[in-house]
């Protein structure tokens, strides 16, 4: 296990550095710097600004400074929100985004797997079709279509749920955003789980289990679930990436003060440090998740040896 962790880290760190470099140079490539949209400034002031933000140094030097600061956890000052550092901005949005994201991951995994297994066991019955129908909705109705519609129905017409704002993390404010965010992933995961479970149910070892005369519940609990869930573990990281992407839209639609919002604003205003900072945060989270899914795989599948690739 330690070996696995070590191996992953040795890949993760260079990857992170590459991503930081990528974002850094990409942003610098963009025509115009962070201050070109504002009124022309007298040269002395411009020079002072360049000095403060290190913009006058050769680009490699800038990168070096940025890299070392970043690895120490200092993401630098925001170019646009002049009184704040990127760290502060991210920290303010973090609780919102993490609550949203975590709830969505858990909901997607739990519901997705549950629905998938049920659909597989009751294959080709009304329940199967119902589950697959819901899943179809999740795939074909993008979140930015679904979210407003759900808001309309539950928020405006039925008056049950608030349609925007964070409300200090009240659970009512979370319901619509989390559901709109999770539905596409629930759809995908339930399909994968259904296909995987069907394949497991048709396999030889389940035939053996049936021939042992074990009750159906036992077979499903002890034999089927663990064997079927393996492909889902591989999907964990892409699923999270999908949720991160979706959260940007959802935060926008529901007016949630999370990190996604800062990202979009930063992108539109060429706030280099802010955008890089958010990007690095997301990338790190994802790498952490890849690590977790590797560990899960080793735990759940005894056939996977730790130094297997």
């Amino acid at each position, binding site marked *: 296990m330690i070996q696995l962790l070590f191996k992953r880290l040795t890949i993760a760190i260079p990857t992170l550095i590459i991503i930081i470099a990528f974002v850094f140079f990409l942003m610098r490539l963009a025509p115009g710097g962070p201050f070109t949209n504002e009124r022309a400034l007298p040269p002395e002031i411009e020079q002072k600004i360049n000095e403060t933000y290190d913009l006058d140094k050769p680009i490699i030097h800038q990168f070096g400074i940025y890299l070392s600061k970043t690895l120490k956890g200092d993401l630098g000052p925001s170019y646009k929100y002049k009184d704040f550092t990127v760290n502060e901005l991210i920290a303010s949005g973090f609780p919102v985004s993490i609550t949203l994201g975590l709830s969505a991951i858990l909901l997607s995994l739990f519901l997705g797997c549950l629905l998938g297994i049920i659909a597989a066991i009751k294959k080709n019955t009304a329940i199967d079709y119902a589950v697959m129908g819901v899943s179809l909705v999740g795939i074909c109705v993008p979140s930015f279509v679904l979210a407003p519609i759900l808001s309309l129905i539950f928020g405006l017409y039925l008056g049950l749920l608030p349609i925007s704002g964070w409300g200090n993390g009240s659970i009512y404010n979370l319901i619509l955003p989390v559901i709109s965010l999770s539905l596409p992933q629930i759809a995908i995961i339930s399909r994968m789980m259904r296909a995987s479970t069907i394949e497991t149910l048709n396999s030889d070892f389940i035939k*053996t289990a049936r021939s042992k*005369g074990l009750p159906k519940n036992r077979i499903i609990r002890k034999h089927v679930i663990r064997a079927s869930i393996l492909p889902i573990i591989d999907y964990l990281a892409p699923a999270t990436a999908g949720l991160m992407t979706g959260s940007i839209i959802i935060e926008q639609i529901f007016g949630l003060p999370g990190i996604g919002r800062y990202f979009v604003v930063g992108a539109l205003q060429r706030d280099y440090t802010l955008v890089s900072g958010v990007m690095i945060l997301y990338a790190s989270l994802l790498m952490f998740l890849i690590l977790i899914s590797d560990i899960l795989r080793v735990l759940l599948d005894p056939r996977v040896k730790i130094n297997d690739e």
Partner: protein
Amino acid sequence: MNNILEVKNLNVKFDTTQGEVTAVNNISFNIKKGECIGVAGESGSGKTQTFFSITGILSDNGKATGEVIFNNLNLLDLNERELTKIRGKDIGFIFQDPMTSLTPHMKIGDQLTEVSIYHDKKSKSESTKKAKEVLDKVRLPRINNLIKKYPHELSGGMRQRIMIGISLMCNPRLIIADEPTTALDVTTQKDILKIFSDLQKEKITIALITHDIGVLAEVSDNIIIMNEGSIVEKGKTNKVLVTPEHDYTKHLLSCVPEWLK
């Protein structure tokens, strides 16, 4: 009443996209207590489907009609719940491919003990004791180590012996072995057949399905030959193999190399 199993007019049909296919066509036979009966035939002769239908593990699109009398009940009349009580307890099954027939993520010990825990309501420790006895019976070494291992750590021969062991956990009245040696290499086959011989000597009733005549010649008392869903010949092994009556049997036997007979 010394027949363990009486099959009367068994028909097995499958509903496929190309229409209805008859796999087993009105067959009847008996299995006596303590005998080892061999069921031979080519692939597709219906021999496997016969026994799958007896234990109720046909695919969803299959339907069996007729009478299968076991324990004074017609198995075909029972519902799934009642059948699960009989499977694994009174009827043990051994499948063909040991490489895929064991659950990959469960320890060997658990795969054995769960049978008697659920059927005989034994405790974990009693079950484990029985598991070790059974593994000994199938001639497996280092049993205490073995029960903690996972299937992928074992060879095909060992896994097949474990399968046999599983079928023995509840002292079944009948064991059905579907091509138990087909997926194994010749030396391992011999070892497995030895185990069947042992079981036969203990007067455990066995139905051995295979297309390998050599296997049957070694272990079975009586033989049933099937072709295209029907029984073409049945009788004592020695008699059928030496003096076959039906054309198909003759044809089947002619495929066996001379020096094996």
